[in-house]
């Protein structure tokens, strides 16, 4: 199947990424002594790498405290990453000075989770949407007024609303205002940080549809951060799963939901309540809580809670590389065959059970 394609397209089929994140880390110091020395750190983001292609939606999922929001903010430098690199449209984001960074932010925007705290209550909706236009000198005067009204209309708000204040709007409408604000500067890429988590299901559907329409019309790329796996399946082209600051699985949406290979992803999918009373699954119920990121487990961070039948001593000793198990399907697990960590290496680390392919379908699909 692929051979005729490669003849027709001498260049690789995948376009250059719009955003490339390489080995991104963000450590927060805790319990520091005088002058910040002698303390330990919370490894909120610990070596995260992924690409976002133009016009694509990459879903970033995980539970609270896994570092997904910190990743989104570190990419935009709303918090300064500790190390790693972020390249946006060929420019190295982490090396930019403040002026250049401000210019770049025109192309990279963010939509926040909480529509109640992310809008300035003292500014009218028009002023909120207009601010970006002014800062980036995109429009002024009557021209800016016109743009604001167009933007409000585009996100499904009445243009007359521009004189009103955020408190006059419902949660879903505020989220639309946040979207209009982000769109004002005509970005190519938007970090959507749990944009629908605070909304009721009917309003959530409205906002999800709006985001999809805007992507289609404007060719936007999204990093869609969420804890809700069903929303991510609905909107994402590819999905990265995070656990304790690391990406543990990265695949296309179809592959990830059909054949999740990282045991953590399996448990996560299996835990989602199914709105079908006839469906009864053998649910994988994880024991215990997510360990503290200030003192993560050794080896594979998931091993204390893992249910893979081949789990053994080696899992506590070897840090699993994020490696390709199938074309385009990256998984960090040395027990999920195939793996580049040889059996000899595993045995040297105390392994007693060889890797095997483990996919508990009964726990995943109703």
């Amino acid at each position, binding site marked *: 199947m692929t051979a005729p394609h490669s003849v027709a397209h001498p260049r690789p089929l995948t376009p250059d990424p719009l955003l490339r994140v390489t080995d991104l880390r963000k450590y927060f110091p805790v319990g520091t002594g005088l002058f910040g020395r002698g303390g330990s750190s919370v490894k909120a983001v610990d070596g995260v790498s992924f690409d976002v292609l133009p016009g694509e939606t990459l879903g970033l999922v995980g539970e609270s405290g896994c570092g997904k929001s910190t990743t989104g903010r570190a990419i935009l430098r709303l918090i300064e990453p500790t190390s790693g690199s972020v390249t946006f449209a060929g420019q190295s984001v982490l090396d930019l000075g403040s002026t250049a960074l401000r210019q770049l932010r025109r192309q990279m925007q963010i939509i926040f989770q909480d529509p109640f705290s992310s809008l300035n209550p003292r500014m009218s909706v028009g002023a909120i949407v207009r601010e970006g236009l002014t800062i980036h000198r995109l429009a002024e005067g009557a021209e800016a007024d016109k743009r604001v009204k167009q933007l409000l209309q585009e996100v499904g708000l009445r243009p007359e609303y521009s004189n009103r204040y955020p408190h*006059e709007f419902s949660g879903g409408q505020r989220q639309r205002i946040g979207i209009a604000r982000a769109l004002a500067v005509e970005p190519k890429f938007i970090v959507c940080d749990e944009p629908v988590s605070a909304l009721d299901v009917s309003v959530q559907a409205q906002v999800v549809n709006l985001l999809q329409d805007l992507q289609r019309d404007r060719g936007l790329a999204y990093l869609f951060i969420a804890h809700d796996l069903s929303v991510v399946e609905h909107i994402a082209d590819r999905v990265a799963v995070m656990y304790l600051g690391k990406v543990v699985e990265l695949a296309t949406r179809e592959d990830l939901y059909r054949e999740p290979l990282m045991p953590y992803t399996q448990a996560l999918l299996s835990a989602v309540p199914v709105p079908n*009373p006839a469906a009864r699954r053998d649910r994988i119920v994880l024991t215990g809580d997510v360990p503290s990121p200030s003192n993560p487990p050794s080896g594979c961070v998931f091993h204390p809670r893992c249910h893979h039948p081949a789990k053994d001593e080696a899992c506590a000793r070897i840090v699993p590389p994020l490696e390709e198990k199938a074309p385009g399907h990256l998984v960090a697990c040395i027990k999920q065959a195939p793996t580049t960590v040889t059996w000899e290496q595993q045995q040297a680390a105390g392994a007693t059970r060889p890797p095997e392919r483990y996919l508990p379908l009964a726990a995943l699909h109703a």
Partner: protein
Amino acid sequence: MTEPLLKVENLHTFFYSENGVARAVDGVSFAVGAGETVGIVGESGCGKSVTALSILRLVRPPGRIEQGSRLLFDGTDLLGLSEEQMRKIRGNRIAMVFQEPMTALNPVFTVGEQIAEVSRIHEGKSRKDAWARAVEMLTLVGIPSPEQRAKEYPHQLSGGMRQRIVIAMALVMNPALVIADEPTTALDVTIQAQILELLSEMQRRAGMSILMITHDLGVVAETCTRVIVMYGGEIVEESSVGDVFKAAHHPYTEGLLGAMPRVGGGQERLTTIPGTVPPPTAWPVGCRFHDRCPYAWDRCVNDHPPLYQIGAGHVSRCHLAEEPEYRNRPHPPLVEQVMGVGGVAQGGAPGERENVKDRSELT
């Protein structure tokens, strides 16, 4: 048929504010049988939480349970009890599990003390016996090293652990009824699975009834036997869990199901319910859902529908029960016709809804 454990009859709970009377719960009747799990679902502002609070008589002024409401619990009308008598029922015969375990627990007492307090108050147990009971409860809800954990404060525990504490506290007295108000909404999905598992295991052991208040139809499907859908302070549909997912009758229920993305559901466009829930101070005349409904016709504008019997144990507050042919004529709902794209009516401005009120010409 035996008498149900809880029978709510014609419950009206109103809030009196400067902006008018908010009819948060407006004529709700249902029953919960012994050992049964009943779900109440609906979106913010539908009245599901106020219903729960009303059953425990925890509604504070300016809220008031109106005359004519009846709350029959095990044969007695809770509304006829004195505050003193009511206190003996709360936490004892009827317990509540709240959504946010951090605010439901007192930050300045250890969790052991808080659980022990329940049996000291209700059973007059000694400090020592009550403490032993608290540790026993912690073991029961699956807290590792319970003796140790009992001496810790809420902030030292994770969210899932705190919710286990809240459940332990609710179950100390072996209540006949547990009201769980969004018990897993603040939790991650893997922790949610643990808590739901715990609740159903506790129910198997103790045989209590559960009234599960939630916005998540997935949670309902997994835990409940019967489901009540609320909208606009009223019950709009009630049926067995099987029926509501297979053959939802009310357009609002249908809308909720369609708006919900599902794992394995692919990427087909989500159906939305345009507009938002109207304010409880001004429920629409006629059917309260009519301006957001894709099937509404002129009758729905002024004629408030009763609960029609659809099938065995299945009722729906929709005129489609009498005139099913209108289901074949979907159209953009009124709120979209009036307001334009997205149906974003009622931008908070008080006058806005009034425009919508004059709808007759549009149908």
